[in-house]
C-alpha cells in the first residue's frame, strides 16, 4: 500500500481547512495519511525537510503547508485544494 503523509502546521489556516477533507477521504476511500505537525515537532519538521528536493519544485520553491506526499510514487500535492482534487491525487 502506498504511503501517504500530510505535513501540516497547527496554526496554518490552509491545514485547518484541509484536515476535515482528509478525514472524509480516509473514511470514504479507506486510505490513511500520516498527519505530521511540523512547527511544534522537530522530528516531523526534519522529516519534511528530508523531502525538500521533492516538495520545493511543486510548492513555489518552499516548504509550504499543507503538503501531501506519496512516498511510493514521490507524488506531491501542495496547499489548499478542493476535495475532488485531493481525492484524484490520492487515488492516482
Amino acid at each position, binding site marked *: 500500500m502506498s504511503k501517504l503523509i500530510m*505535513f501540516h*502546521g*497547527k*496554526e*496554518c*489556516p*490552509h*491545514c*485547518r481547512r484541509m484536515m476535515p477533507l482528509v478525514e472524509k477521504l480516509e473514511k470514504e476511500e479507506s486510505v490513511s495519511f500520516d498527519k505530521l505537525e*511540523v*512547527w*511544534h515537532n522537530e522530528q516531523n*519538521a526534519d522529516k*519534511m*525537510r528530508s523531502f*525538500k528536493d521533492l516538495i520545493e519544485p511543486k510548492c*513555489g520553491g*518552499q*516548504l*509550504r*503547508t499543507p503538503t501531501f506526499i506519496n512516498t511510493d510514487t514521490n507524488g506531491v500535492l501542495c496547499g489548499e485544494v478542493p476535495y475532488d482534487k485531493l481525492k484524484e491525487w490520492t487515488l492516482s
Partner: protein
Amino acid sequence: MKNFWRCHVCGDIHFGLKPPEVCPTCSVEHAYVEIPSGEALNIQSGTKTETDRMGFLKAITAFAENNAFQVNPDRERVDMLLDGVFSNEKNHGLKYCPCRLRTKDFEEDIKLVCPCNFRIHETYKDKVDGECWCGLFIKRSDK
C-alpha cells in the same frame, strides 16, 4: 553577505548589503559605518520596544495603510496566524510564517519572517483578490 551599519550621527541601524546614501532619520549623507552583529545586538537589547501581540497587529496595520493590501478583516484567521507567529518566535527565535517550514538555512529562513515579501507569491501577484500565502494580508478592493 548582508551586514549591519550604524549612522554615526543619529545611531540608526541598517541591515543590508550596503548602507543608505542618505540617513532616513537625520538626512546626513554617507553617515553609515559597518558594525559587527554583536554591536547591533547590544544596541538592540538596550532599546525597549513593543513586541507583544497587540503591538505587532498595530505595526502590520500601519505597514499596510499606505500599501495596496490590508490586514485580513477575518479576525479568527488573523488570531490563528498570530498564535503561530508568536509561538514560532518563542520556540524558534523569529516570527516565522506559520504556513511554511524553515529550512535551517538562515539566509533562506529570514525570508519567512512575518511579514514576508508576499508580493511575489503567486497567490498575491496578478490576482485581483490576491493574498499572502497564509491570508494574513489581502489586496484592498479600493486600490
